[in-house]
């Protein structure tokens, strides 16, 4: 009991500001509504935007585009695959991380909180390099690892990228899930118990879905943030769309064009994500207060 309290106090000392407060400010979660698109000033703005796009097309060099279209599409595929796999894996880890912080015994609680604090307190780029160049260069020194069936994978770069992105997502989303689990009204859990649900059933049927439901808007933002993190893997030799564009930049020596295209690609991917999430959120409507 005393130990638990002490652990809680120690943990409180390192708790970072809640993640939910900034997700919407740092990730696009709502598309601007199309309504009222044709007000006079908007038409002028759109004309200006159109002019800019025209200038970009006319005065900048785009002749390289067809040659790299295939590579770009491949890169987008890799980016999306990374996003999907690491978000799903990360979420799977985030659930227990959030849960033990709400109900777990204190050693697990402290462990989960420490994990979240360390990951949230250091740059992802550094974590990525630590895993790939640091940990990755230690592995081959152990013959056991070198001979194991894992070695062909450990030789590659993507497992490290996936691991780093997964941990990152798990830490940020774990923090969100903690709030979501804690925020499910006690009464609803009590009602489930009153209807004779076992602990597992209560967790799977009521607590988890309800928490996920609560976390959905933030999950949307976290996924957009995760998409925005994926290009970092290019720095450890994974060929995602960012890496493809880097290569284009190096081969063509163009400064702006590939980057502008890249920004456009991410803009579209983000919009797609937002639309997908809007679809899911609409499935379970909640009355906005």
């Amino acid at each position, binding site marked *: 009991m005393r130990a638990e309290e002490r652990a809680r106090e120690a943990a409180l000392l390192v708790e970072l500001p809640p993640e939910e407060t900034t997700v919407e400010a740092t990730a696009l979660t709502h598309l601007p509504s199309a309504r009222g698109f044709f007000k006079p000033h908007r038409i002028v703005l759109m004309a200006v935007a159109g002019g800019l796009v025209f200038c970009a097309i006319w005065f900048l060099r785009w002749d390289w585009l067809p040659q790299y279209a295939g590579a770009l599409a491949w890169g987008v595929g890799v980016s999306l695959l990374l996003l999907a796999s690491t978000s799903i894996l990360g979420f799977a880890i985030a659930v227990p991380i959030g849960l033990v912080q709400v109900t777990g015994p204190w050693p697990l609680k402290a462990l989960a909180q420490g994990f979240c604090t360390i990951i949230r307190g250091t740059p992802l780029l550094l974590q990525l390099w630590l895993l790939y160049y640091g940990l990755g260069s230690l592995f081959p020194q152990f013959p056991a690892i070198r001979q194991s069936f894992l070695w062909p994978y450990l030789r590659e770069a993507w497992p490290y990228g996936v691991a780093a992105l997964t941990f990152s997502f798990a830490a940020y989303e774990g923090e969100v899930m903690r709030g979501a689990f804690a925020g499910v*009204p006690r*009464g*609803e859990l*009590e*009602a*489930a*118990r*009153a*209807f*004779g*649900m*076992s602990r597992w*059933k209560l967790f799977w*049927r*009521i607590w988890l*879905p*309800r928490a996920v*439901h609560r976390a959905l808007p933030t999950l949307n933002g976290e996924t957009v943030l995760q998409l925005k993190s994926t290009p970092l893997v290019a720095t450890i030799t994974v060929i995602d769309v960012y890496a493809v564009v880097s290569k284009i930049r190096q081969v063509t020596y163009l400064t702006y064009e590939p980057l502008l295209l890249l920004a456009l690609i991410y803009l579209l991917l983000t919009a797609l994500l937002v639309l997908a999430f809007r679809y899911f959120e609409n499935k*379970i*409507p*909640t*009355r906005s207060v």
Partner: protein
Amino acid sequence: MTERAEAIAVRDLRKRFGALEVLRGISLTAHEGDVIAIIGGSGSGKSTFLRCINMLETPSSGSVAIRGEAIALKGDGHGGLAPSNRRQVQRLRARLGMVFQSFNLWQHMTIIQNVIEAPVHVLGVPRAEAMERGEALLRRVGLFEKRDVYPSFLSGGQQQRAAIARALAVQPHAMLFDEPTSALDPELVGEVLGVIGDLAKEKRTMILVTHEMKFARNVASHIVFLAQGVIEEQGPPEQIFGDPRSERLRKFISSVH
């Protein structure tokens, strides 16, 4: 009364929260078809008593039996009791329909999903059958058109009626109501009391905690007045309201009228 089977039997129930002894030896038997209303001042232990019946709160001592089956209890090592067989508790709970003051509908499910949840996932009723029965129940409480709506879109009265349908869906041996109308706006109270009144007329076993004295008088077959953790007085409604014996009950009745 004696020839009917015992639906709920509570013997010498005590419950303490730390230093505070909230229930100080309560015995009460509800036979099949009884409608028992529990009244009493705030903090007198009414909710705690109700919650002890289905072990949402574990008693410090005493025993509870549902339909003659005693809930197995063992010492919890802190001077209280705890169920020794979780499965038994879950099985018995599943047939006690509890209705809460704040409804506690599951917000991530539609009304019909709320209603069929326990029958399908706890009792193992086939989905189609549960659906059919659930819809009948919703029709009965006047919420059939709202079946596919999420709870947050309903008024408090509608939510409480849905909660009652949810409790009925498990075909409960007995229903437990904890102040089912006190979270409602005055104009919505009537519709919920109407539904409960109908249930009482069907001679369903019910124990209800309520502050609505007029309603308790009309509906209950037996009134229990709780004060400071003991049953201060009990009896048929006419006697309790018409001819209260104890000073405390007399004061209580005049204060709420």
